[in-house]
């Protein structure tokens, strides 16, 4: 049985007008979360409405599967997307996801939802050309669903518990997959202890997203040296609560990947090369030490299409990257 308060509207236009008025949206239209749609979402995930996905103790908020399903419907998800939303909400609400800080911060951190495993192709998670941008329903709505949970359930409303000075477009939605077949790299979720056939979500709080563009280098070392220089432009000081597990994510495009595949470099070799260079002492105003605890905290994700010799740096806000399995039931035929 669903627990959320029900109301009746004259039609969907009336609902939408009221949703805007009550601040239930991110500024874009939403789908009316009817009880039938919400129940269908819960059925796909095999969850009871009252199943607890996590909590925000500082805000006295508990997030249930029903909360997540309502907001996933509103975001425009299809039912088969919902198990990914559930895993993303669980990851975000992990203690070390540090959700109160990452969603209340002045810096306006965003939540990157990185999807691995077979579910990517089953539900159409984009990981090739254009995958960080618009045009893909699964990416757009899953990322948006997490943000609507953060807004409507966890109360991160701008000017209230969302204190961002500017905020940024990544807070509308930020979800993409890893291109696991790009080469022979070990996929992110396998590096983090999951079986290849297990689909997962990794949520990474992003404080800055920086392009590392290098079309001149023709060696793995050259590409990585540019990456180090671009990463160290801002540096990172670390945090007592989060200790030595704060990650740094690199989303490496095809024109950079190929140098590593051709030379036989694994992700582990890249991590070993990068770690001492990122953590070397600060040398100047625009060359600042990156305080990482271990080489394994450098998470390398293959994605994107051909053309630009570019890697995106997803510099962290104050959280661990948290990976959770996607659990689902089979859709009825």
């Amino acid at each position, binding site marked *: 049985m669903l627990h959320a308060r029900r109301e009746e509207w004259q039609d969907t236009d009336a609902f939408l007008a009221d949703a805007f008025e009550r601040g239930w949206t991110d500024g874009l239209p939403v789908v009316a979360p009817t009880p039938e749609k919400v129940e269908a979402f819960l059925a796909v995930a095999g969850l009871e409405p009252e199943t607890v996905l996590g909590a925000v103790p500082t805000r006295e908020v*508990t997030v249930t599967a029903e909360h997540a399903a309502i907001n996933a419907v509103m975001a425009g998800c299809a039912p088969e997307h919902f198990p990914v939303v559930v895993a993303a909400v669980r990851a975000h609400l992990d203690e070390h996801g540090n959700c109160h800080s990452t969603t209340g911060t002045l810096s306006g951190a965003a939540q990157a939802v990185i999807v691995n495993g077979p579910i990517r192709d089953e539900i159409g998670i984009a990981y090739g050309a254009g995958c960080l941008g618009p045009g893909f329903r699964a990416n757009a709505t899953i990322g948006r669903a997490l943000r609507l949970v953060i807004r409507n*359930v966890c109360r991160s409303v701008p000017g209230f518990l969302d204190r961002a000075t500017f905020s940024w477009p990544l807070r509308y939605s930020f979800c993409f997959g890893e291109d696991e077949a790009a080469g022979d790299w070990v996929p992110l979720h396998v590096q983090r202890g999951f079986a290849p056939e297990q689909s997962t979500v990794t949520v990474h709080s992003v404080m800055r997203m920086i392009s590392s563009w290098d079309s001149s280098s023709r060696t793995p070392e050259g590409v990585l040296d540019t990456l180090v220089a671009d990463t160290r432009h801002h540096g990172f000081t670390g945090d007592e609560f989060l200790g030595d597990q704060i990650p740094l994510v690199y989303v490496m495009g095809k024109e950079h990947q190929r140098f590593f595949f051709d030379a036989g470099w694994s992700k582990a070799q890249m991590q070993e090369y990068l770690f001492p260079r990122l953590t070397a002492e600060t040398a100047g105003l625009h060359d600042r030490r990156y305080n990482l605890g271990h080489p394994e905290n450098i998470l390398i994700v293959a994605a994107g299409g051909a053309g630009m010799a570019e890697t995106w740096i997803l510099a962290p806000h104050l959280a661990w990257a948290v990976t959770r399995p996607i659990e689902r039931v089979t859709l009825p035929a």
Partner: protein
Amino acid sequence: MTIVALDPTSGPIDPTGDRRLAPRPVSLSGQRLGLVVNGLGYSERFLDALGSELLAITDLDGVVKVVKSSVSVPPDPGDWSRLTEGATVAITGFGG
């Protein structure tokens, strides 16, 4: 055709209606000042200077300073106790 839809929120922010801002004192005379340092930038230096200035120009009864153990989490329970038991007014700040 009418539609029935569900409330997407976790309910009212103040369901019992008993939350309100603490009363503001008309004077700092006799008050004990709490300072909550978030650890960012020069916050400790700034709040130390502010506390010293207020001690010099008012009749404050003393200062209780709390420095958070991490910039990313609230003060720990021990620090909250020191504040609530030792201070009657408090100043904090935010920003990086």
